[in-house]
């Protein structure tokens, strides 16, 4: 923390000598059917990290988009260094020194780093001078601790490296205020540490950072100030040192939240799922991979899950998690190896027979794979049933109504299409079908990233449901890229890196760092 930012922090909201670098005043933005922002006030000082914290749909991304020029506010104004500015586009935002790094990167995969960085610049010479550009890109990236090879092709970079390209691009174009939208969503823990170092380097150079996030844990470390939003309104603002996770969670959700770890209590029982020596190579897969030089999608996977146990699989997305889930659930055949569900070998039987053997599967992509988005809740409950020639919707309707009351699913009714549900409620429907259906006798559950994109409140209820299923004696394989989630729920943790299990650990806090390093491919 440097001195200048301390000074500006004290003076915010007073029209003192140093006006805020960027501020929003009484901003209101409406979309059809929702008020995304209502009379929101927000400001960031020079050299400050100001975090916008809130659940999905709280309006924080809308506010960031207004501040960067992507949206125009219906009412209210945006001020840059105390003067009102009218930002008509992201480009006009950039001309005022404001840049936003989106959660989903906006880079051209086939261009090099340098080419991406200069993309959109005005005043480039007709014939590009690659050497000059590369030199300048290197200069910017070194100054802020963003190591990058300007000649690397963006399509071959990792998520963390691509993010660096976006940040370098913003800085190259003269950004003084950076808005980072969910910047840690795609990063492994060591990459997050690196990002935070960059953010500190930028603020000590007098730049301002607006950090948009819904992850409680990480923002406390990095932020000078945290402003919490809920339902389009600011619910509170907390300074560095005054922030603690449970207070912030309360501001986000509007009620108290349990964040404590949950562990299996009973002694684990029989082995219900076992995977041994499973190999899956690229030839068999239909999905094209970004890493053609990698021989196997999965190599030599061995694991066992017992009744009443949650086995966590940690790893950064794209290291074979989805493939492992598809192999176990019978959607894809491994080249080698065996999968046994409740004592029955299932390789080669296909998805339906594997399900009948006692396996339930909650895929990562809940709307679009686990649920048919345009079909009703009732029809989605029918999906995994034995339906016969004529479909019996009556019993499914009764079951849907039971689930809606029991799991507190917020919906106009059981005939509502699942795409109209919020992420958390859709996930409840999916979990209900896979875990609690009376027609379903499954004893093994594979669940992939069950809380991705969900609100804190919904995360809590999904975790409670999984915990309940564990207590009922199910064997659960939890595959998630959210390390916090794995460490909160799992009794044991395996780390999947480039298709191999590289570490086995107990799910306790002391192992957190070791697991995080293994996820990034750093051997312990």
């Amino acid at each position, binding site marked *: 923390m440097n001195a200048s930012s301390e000074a500006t922090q004290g003076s915010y909201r007073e029209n003192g000598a140093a006006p805020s670098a960027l501020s929003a005043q009484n901003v209101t933005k409406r979309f059809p059917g929702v008020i995304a922002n209502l009379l929101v006030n927000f400001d960031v000082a020079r050299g400050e990290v100001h975090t916008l914290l809130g659940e999905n749909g709280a309006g924080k991304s809308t506010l960031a988009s207004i501040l960067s020029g992507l949206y125009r506010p219906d009412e209210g104004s945006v001020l840059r260094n105390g003067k009102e500015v009218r930002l008509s586009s992201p480009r006009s935002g950039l001309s005022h020194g404001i840049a936003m790094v989106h959660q989903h990167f906006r880079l051209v995969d086939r261009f090099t780093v340098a080419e991406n960085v200069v993309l959109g610049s005005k005043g480039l010479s007709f014939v590009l001078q690659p050497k000059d550009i590369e030199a300048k890109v290197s200069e910017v990236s070194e100054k802020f601790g963003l190591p990058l090879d300007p000649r690397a092709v963006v399509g071959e970079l990792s998520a963390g490296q691509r993010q660096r390209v976006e940040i370098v691009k913003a800085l190259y174009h003269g950004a003084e205020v950076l808005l980072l939208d969910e910047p840690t969503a795609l990063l492994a823990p060591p990459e997050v540490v690196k990002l935070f170092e960059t953010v500190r380097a930028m603020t000590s150079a007098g730049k301002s950072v607006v950090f948009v996030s819904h992850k409680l844990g990480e923002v406390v470390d990095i932020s000078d100030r945290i402003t919490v939003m809920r339902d389009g309104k600011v619910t509170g603002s907390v300074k560095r040192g005054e922030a603690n996770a449970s207070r912030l969670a309360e501001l986000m959700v509007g009620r108290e939240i349990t964040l404590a770890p949950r562990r299996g209590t009973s002694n684990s029982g029989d082995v219900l799922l076992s995977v041994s020596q499973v190999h899956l190579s690229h030839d068999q897969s239909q999905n094209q991979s970004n890493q053609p030089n990698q021989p196997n999608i999965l190599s030599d996977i061995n694991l066992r899950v017992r009744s009443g146990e949650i086995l966590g699989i940690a790893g950064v997305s794209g290291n074979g998690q989805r493939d492992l889930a598809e192999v176990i659930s019978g959607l894809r055949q491994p080249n080698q190896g065996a999968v046994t569900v409740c004592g029955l070998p299932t390789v080669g039987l296909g998805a339906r027979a594997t399900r009948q053997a006692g396996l339930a*599967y909650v895929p990562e992509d809940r709307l679009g794979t686990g649920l*048919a988005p*345009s079909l009703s809740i009732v*029809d989605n409950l*029918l999906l995994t049933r034995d339906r016969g*020639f*004529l479909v019996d919707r009556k019993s499914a309707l009764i079951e849907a109504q039971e689930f809606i009351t029991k799991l507190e699913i917020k919906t106009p009714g059981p005939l509502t299409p699942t795409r109209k549900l919020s992420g958390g409620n859709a996930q409840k429907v999916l979990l209900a079908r896979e875990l609690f259906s009376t027609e379903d006798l499954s004893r093994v559950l594979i669940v992939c990233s069950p809380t991705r994109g969900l609100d804190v409140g919904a995360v809590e209820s999904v975790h409670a449901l999984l915990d309940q299923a564990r207590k009922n004696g199910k064997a659960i394989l939890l595959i998630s890229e959210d390390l916090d989630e794995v460490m909160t729920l799992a009794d044991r943790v395996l780390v999947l890196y480039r298709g191999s299990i590289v570490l086995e650990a107990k799910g306790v806090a002391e192992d957190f760092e070791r697991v995080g390093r293994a996820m990034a491919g750093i051997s312990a």
Partner: protein
Amino acid sequence: MIIGKARIQLEARLTAPRWLVVVVPVFSVLFALVVGGVFLLITGHPPIRTYRDLLDNGYTSFYGITDTLGLATPLICTGLAAAFAFRMNLYNIGQEGQLYLGMVGGAWAGIALAPHLNQFIAVPVVLVTGALFGAVWVLVPALLRARMGTSEIVSTLLLNYVALNLINYFIYGSRGFFRDPSTPFPQGRPISESARFDSFGTTNTYPTLIISIILAVFLFWFVRRSNYGYETSVFADSPQTARYAGMNSIWLTSSVLLFSGALAGLGGAMYVVGPAGKVDPGLLQTGLGYAGIVVAALARYNFVAVIITAVLFAGLRVGGSALQASSDPVPIAIAVVLQGAVLLFALGGEIFRRNRVVITRVAQNVKVSV
């Protein structure tokens, strides 16, 4: 769009009120008539009287409505064929060719098999054979689509031209099985009388109309209640979900296309059983296959609504042709313009069902919703 001080924008509706489903199409047809009226005025025909004649010839007179129902009979089949495939996002636009092949198959059965059968069996045999021929005509596109993902749009469309030339060859190009040997005039060989339906009285409506209507109602029920209908709905909505649930996508894709082809083929066989009684190149002029796509789109792939839109469309066709023969002949082109206008406005009206018009005053940011 900005007019004066007002900015007019479209905003997506979150929920569409039920009355819009009726009001939007009705207004679409009215607007189409107004546009058609302008054309009539330009060409020197009094719009009101022309419309009254059209209504009379197409719908309200006894022979008008029975002609219309006769034409609607195969059109319901091609409409069902299009709706059945389209609702699964399978764009079979080969109803035209499948219809011709249904006619060929029906005529073959009517000539080769029917003389050995009594009427209760002969007519169903002709209809089923026509349906089978229609299905066979879509077999290759169906397998290519299901196994290799080849676009069924291109393959089914191109086969229409093959079918067209095939019919021309059978009647004009060769002296083969389907050509009537008893006359030098090129025409189809008549099928056995036992395989033909009599029309109702002196009208041009045949009992096949009842079969078409029963089929539409059956499909409406079948798709909602059967497991097959359920699986196709899941697959149409999200192929990934269907795969996740262990459904057989190759079977679903190919069977839907084959059923669709069979429905169009059935339409062709109905033409044989009813008015034609032979392979009749006159069917090539009607464009009933392509019209089926229009009928299905207007019905928004609802099988029961297909009955209504098919009758509506057939009436425009029948009434339009009758205008040519009236005392003040209106060119057939005008009738086609009217059909086109109805279609464009009906499909364009969808915008108003999905969105609402919002007028904002630019100066004061006051919203007035309509």
